[in-house]
């Protein structure tokens, strides 16, 4: 039995909005980064599913997913490096302590 496309899209939509919600509400830098990863993975699912079900004759969506995974890895590496640097300066990574720059 083949699973219909809608179910995949449901999963990706839930992941996307969970990511947006987490980005806004989480108070720890690593947790914020995890929320962003949820968003990016929702996008990858979307591309792969659209390609497989709607446009099976081409590869564009799958290629986009591969590139997007690679770029997301680079982004995470840089973000974690910056977070480590913050830990060295402040000894924690809570958002509420990042208040040196404000109006």
């Amino acid at each position, binding site marked *: 039995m083949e699973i219909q496309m809608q179910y995949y899209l449901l999963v990706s939509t839930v992941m996307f909005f969970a990511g947006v919600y987490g980005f806004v509400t989480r108070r720890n830098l690593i947790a914020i980064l995890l929320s962003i990863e949820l968003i990016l993975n929702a996008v990858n699912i979307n*591309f792969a599913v659209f390609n497989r079900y*709607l446009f099976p004759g081409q590869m564009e969506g799958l290629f986009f997913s591969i590139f997007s995974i690679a770029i997301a890895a680079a982004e995470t590496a*840089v973000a974690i490096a910056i977070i480590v640097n913050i830990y060295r300066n402040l000894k924690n990574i809570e958002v509420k302590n990042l208040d040196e720059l404000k109006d």
Partner: protein
Amino acid sequence: MNAMDYSNFLVMKEELSLVAVMVILLLYDVFGSKKSLRYFQPVACILFAVHTLLHVVPSVANESFGGMYQYTPMIGVLKTILNIGTLIVLMQASEWLRSESTIHKRGEFVFLLLTTLLGMYFMVSAGNFMFFYIGLETASIPLATLVAFDKFKSKSAEAGAKYILNAVFASGLSLYGLSLIYGTTGTLYFEDIPAAITGAPLQILAFVFFVVGLFFKMSLVPFHQWTPDVYEGAPTAVTSYLSVISKGAAAFVLMTILIKVFSPIAAQWQGILYGVIIVTITLANLFAIRQKNLKRFLAYSSISQAGYIVLGIIGGSAMGMASLVYYILVYMVSNLAAFGVIAAIENKTGKVSMDDYNGLYSTNPRLALVMTLAMFSLAGIPPFAGFFSKFFIFAAAAEQGYYILVLIALINTIISLYYYLLVVKAMFINKSDAPIAAFRCDGAMRFSLSLCSAGIVLLGLLSVIYNQLSLLGYGM
């Protein structure tokens, strides 16, 4: 499938020569002896100047990789403008890079800076959303490392974290929109998408997600909150780069994508831009008035300038594109002049507050004059270049019938005049017990500041520049 045709790469002349410059500088930095590395910064500036001069005359329109990479004379002109801006930033950064805490990583700085420029080249030349996305990330990931470059200052680290998290979140939103666009049209090529756009609700939703990501990059209200913090915390050279080069490239890309890809739903995006322009210009102006830190002040000023830049996009006309590129050029020289003065004073004294500038004219008259020129140009006072760029961009919007919008923008110009003149007043009129002592900048900084001042005075008066640009523009 055919074998890879390497002649495709020969179309990408600018990118190839930039990569050559980057590789030469990287090898020089790694293998150069300690003695020869004394000349690293002059060599970097000269090599990059040669690269700029090589491409100063735009060639004919072309494309490669099956339309993924596009080249038009206007794109060539924009790349030259970005080159000139980057060259000025490199010259202004040299004094800061020679200081104790950064001298061992100046090679990294130049390499990362040029990598982001390469990403922007890809971004403005893209003919496909995947290519566009790769360019966007090649531009923004190294920029985050540059923002966090002063790694022993907690301000810089904080700004870096705020920048990278916001940038990735914005590109995540954009990507989600792109995935829906792909799902409803079945292609990622700019040329093929308009035929498949019907204006269905899902497509409008996809478009909104996509464009919000770009608004984040351009720091338009209400997606601007990261801008003041990042501008204040980043090293001044990086702030100036962020505020002109990165913003200029994003504005041009926004325009090309809107007129090429989303022309069938022009009514919708024009409505969105209409609201965004009004909110951006007005709110940023009101916030700028109460800033005391000059970097923060210029951050809000640059947000409101971004609003004016979008005025060139909203009509989607050829004249709009010409005035947009002209505005980017003028805004670049004015803002880089202001940031150059701030960087020079910050390097010598560490002061960035507006009160510290009281009485600057009595001790450093030349720096005060350059700053005044920059402020007059940003405010749009004739006969400086800023007046002409504002005039053309208002004319382009009025030509398409946006009279009320232009009126609101005009009123905001008057408000902005107030806060730009506050800086001038501090330097010339306010008295200070301990003004900043007289000092002399290094040669590169003086040269870059004279270049910017010449630009501010001449760009408006030499009408040939705008005339040439208006021949190259294209619209919907």
